[in-house]
């Protein structure tokens, strides 16, 4: 890369992208570059880093809305929200440490562009579900906006959804507006101890199929539970299945007791209170069990919840795989030893019956260039994807190849 543009306002982003489009010079689009090692490596002569577009521009807690420049540090936004007892309900993971970088280094634009979501995804949705409005610069070098600053809006196509999860390949975002929500007054986590994967899935399914509004359902095998900073989890001496309940005091106490009662036949249970719950769910969210195993390839596999253990079982055949579940079995975090194909052939074959998708979140650059990092699409979807890309970035100047080779 010969240089990085660091624009300080939206007009300068337009100028940079218009130049890139005119010269057909690809740009690597970055927020604060904390997730640069996520996705396929981009071949670009120049970078376009949006960290200069920083700052919260509007925060109205009682309207549940916050607007910020796209490069605003996520940590700054979370701190501002915490002052008003609010939060980003989709619980954005901090993938920095997993990717070998620092914690707390990402931007709001990066979180949205990668459509990240933590354990609360099952109840509150992903980044996409909280993304209300966007101003961006297309690969044509033209500024456009979509959405608004109100939580209910169906005026025109929802281009925020397209921006979420597009990894900077459609447009460079300059300003974003998100829905924010009150943080829970109280959090407790019910721990079920010593369940195998199948029993754990049954327990999570019962809990999520109940009226108790479970906002996190994860299962860690013994080897990974033993690494937790939370002593109850670390010293459990076996696998740990965790169910989170959040809300007002009386409600949380009632639901926790009800869950423990309804799941009593599965054996003994423990309960984590606010502080330990926060630490534990942050570990699950940020893939902490694999941060300390930096040599391994890390895959994020989204499947129908009931398929989780079967997919994990198929992958464990004859290899040294580590896995844990979030989203009630629907999200499988998988760590494999390094290999030439990264395990992608076996992984994707395991998904062919149940449906779902696998993303290589951590792996060496050469591997990420060689194997499909994101789930390969069938020809019809690939063609449609290409036409959508053409509508935003016909000259392929924004993050070319980030998601798919040649796109």
């Amino acid at each position, binding site marked *: 890369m010969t*240089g*990085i*543009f660091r*624009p300080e306002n939206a007009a300068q982003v337009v100028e*940079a992208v218009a*130049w890139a489009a*005119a010269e057909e010079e690809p740009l690597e689009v970055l927020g604060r570059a904390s997730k640069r090692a996520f996705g396929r490596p981009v071949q670009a002569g120049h970078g376009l880093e949006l960290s200069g577009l920083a700052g919260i521009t509007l925060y*109205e807690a*009682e*309207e549940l809305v916050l607007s910020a420049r796209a490069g605003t540090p996520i940590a700054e936004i979370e701190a501002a929200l915490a002052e008003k007892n*609010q939060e980003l309900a989709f619980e954005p993971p901090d993938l920095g440490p997993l990717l070998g970088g620092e914690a707390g280094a990402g931007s709001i634009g990066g979180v949205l562009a990668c459509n990240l979501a933590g354990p609360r995804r099952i109840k509150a*949705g*992903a980044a996409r*579900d909280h993304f209300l409005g966007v101003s961006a610069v297309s690969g*044509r070098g*033209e500024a*456009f*906006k979509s959405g*608004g600053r*109100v*939580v*209910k*809006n*169906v*005026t*025109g196509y*929802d*281009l925020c*959804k397209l921006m*979420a*999860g*597009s990894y900077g390949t459609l447009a460079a975002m300059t300003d974003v507006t998100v829905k924010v*929500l*009150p943080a829970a007054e109280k959090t407790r986590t019910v721990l079920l101890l010593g369940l195998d994967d199948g029993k754990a899935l049954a327990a999570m399914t019962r809990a*999520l*199929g*109940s*009226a108790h509004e479970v906002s996190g359902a994860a299962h860690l095998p013994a080897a990974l539970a033993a690494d937790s900073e939370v002593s109850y989890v670390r010293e459990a001496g076996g696998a740990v299945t965790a169910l989170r309940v959040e809300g*007002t005091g*009386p*409600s949380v106490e*009632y639901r926790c007791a*009800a869950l423990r009662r309804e799941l009593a036949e599965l054996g003994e249970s423990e309960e984590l209170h606010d502080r330990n719950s926060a630490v534990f769910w942050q570990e699950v969210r940020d893939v902490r069990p694999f941060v300390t195993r930096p040599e391994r390839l890390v895959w994020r596999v989204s*499947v*129908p*919840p*009931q398929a989780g253990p079967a997919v994990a079982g198929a992958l464990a055949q004859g290899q040294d795989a580590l896995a844990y579940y979030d*989203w009630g079995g629907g999200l499988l975090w998988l760590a494999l030893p390094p290999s030439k194909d990264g395990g992608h052939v076996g992984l994707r074959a395991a998904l062919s019956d149940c*449906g779902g*998708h696998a993303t290589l979140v951590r792996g060496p650059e050469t591997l990420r260039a060689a194997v499909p990092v994101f*789930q390969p*699409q069938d020809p*019809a*979807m690939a063609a*449609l994807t290409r036409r959508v890309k*053409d*509508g*935003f970035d*016909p*000259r392929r100047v924004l993050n070319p190849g980030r998601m798919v080779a040649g796109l």
Partner: protein
Amino acid sequence: MKMPEPDATVLARRREIARALNAIVPGEGVIADRDELAVYESDGLTAYRQRPMVAVLPETVEQVSRILAYCNAEGIKVVPRGAGTSLSGGALPLADGVLLCMARFNRILDIDFANRCVVAQPGVTNLGITKAVESEGFYYAPDPSSQIACTIGGNVAENSGGVHCLKYGLTTNNLLGLEMVLIDGTVVRLGGRHLDAGGYDLLGLMTGSEGLLGVITEVTVRILQAPETARALLLGFPTNEAGGNCVAAIIGAGIIPGGMEMMDRAAIHAAEDFVQAGYPLDVESLLIVELDGPEAEVDDLIARISAIAANCGAVTSRASESEEERLKFWAGRKAAFPAVGRISPDYYCMDGTIPRHRLPEVLKRMAEMSARYGLRVANVFHAGDGNLHPLILYDANNPGELENAEAFGAEILRLCVEVGGVLTGEHGVGVEKRDLMGTMFSEADLAQQQRVKCAFDPDSLLNPGKMFPVLHRCAELGRMHISRGQIPFPDLPRF
């Protein structure tokens, strides 16, 4: 409202087109008789009427695919239709268009309690999904007021909401997967029973795309276990400001109620006269706040919100003590539209969203407009999310009054945009708000949206004349005006 000029060459081929469609969908599946087509001439926005050239009711995905491929090859426009309950004219037929009715796609394909989802054909009603799963205590959360009739496919096309969407989300937040057919007949599947399918979020894009991008043939939605209990609070305030402040204070206290509805004086009186819900008649603003969850939570929140309301100057404060009483509180709100229909020969329902704190100002200016246009207005309001439903009272039999009501409505929507809001919260743009899109979006914004349309439907055959005020050709939109120049801002830090 100007629709695209009917294509005379297509109209001249009407019988031949009907025959070709009949070859794909045999028997009763094709309607070409002018009288029989009358039932399709409008949707929920009855001010606009247009009989389609021909209507077709396919039963299989393969038929949908062949119909679209045929229309695409022949350059014939297609308007998809669910139950036809759109309030924005989204399913308004075209004189030279095929109306593609999805009513026969009315089966639930799979109920998957373990994965907490339902797979349904698009013509299943919204309430039909809840009915299919309620035996196990589950329900489908989005509940538009037309839920008895409106279809799940239409809900996806319009991204329908309902009174519970502040807490439980809109259609887009409850949708897991789709199967759809593109205009060239290609069948594609988006998502499934898992979350956040990889690739561009075309599932999110499709939701609320108003039938302009593809025809939905299968829908997978997530279902939830119904809350254990629900109670409602009825709160009356002497001013709209006080009511608005109470809404802000409830949310400021960190409480997101299951539903939070507001009515103004005119709506309160119309509803009370109609259903005798027990509403106080001496207040300017009435709030219905519903709390749902376990009893311990609901009772606690009822007490907290009662205290907040007292602080905000509530002159009426009643909590439902039984399920009958809760339903009675809601009866007036749910009957608000027909209640207004009783006091006026016609009414026109608007659907703007505003930042909530601008409510008193918007209501004041709406009252000024009401005086100026000489038309009464009643307001019901999804207070939690700022979605306003002004009902403009008029009489279509008085010459010029419909046009007057429409002008009044357009001015309300422009006001919504002016205060930082949007043209439509849940009813869609359709034909109704099409020509107002320019008040919210620039030429560049609309051009980018239409380039998305071009990726799906390059000849603009799917539901043309809806959503976009001006139709540009895709070739024109795709052109780039390049001026090669110096490297930008050389004085900017780059290294």
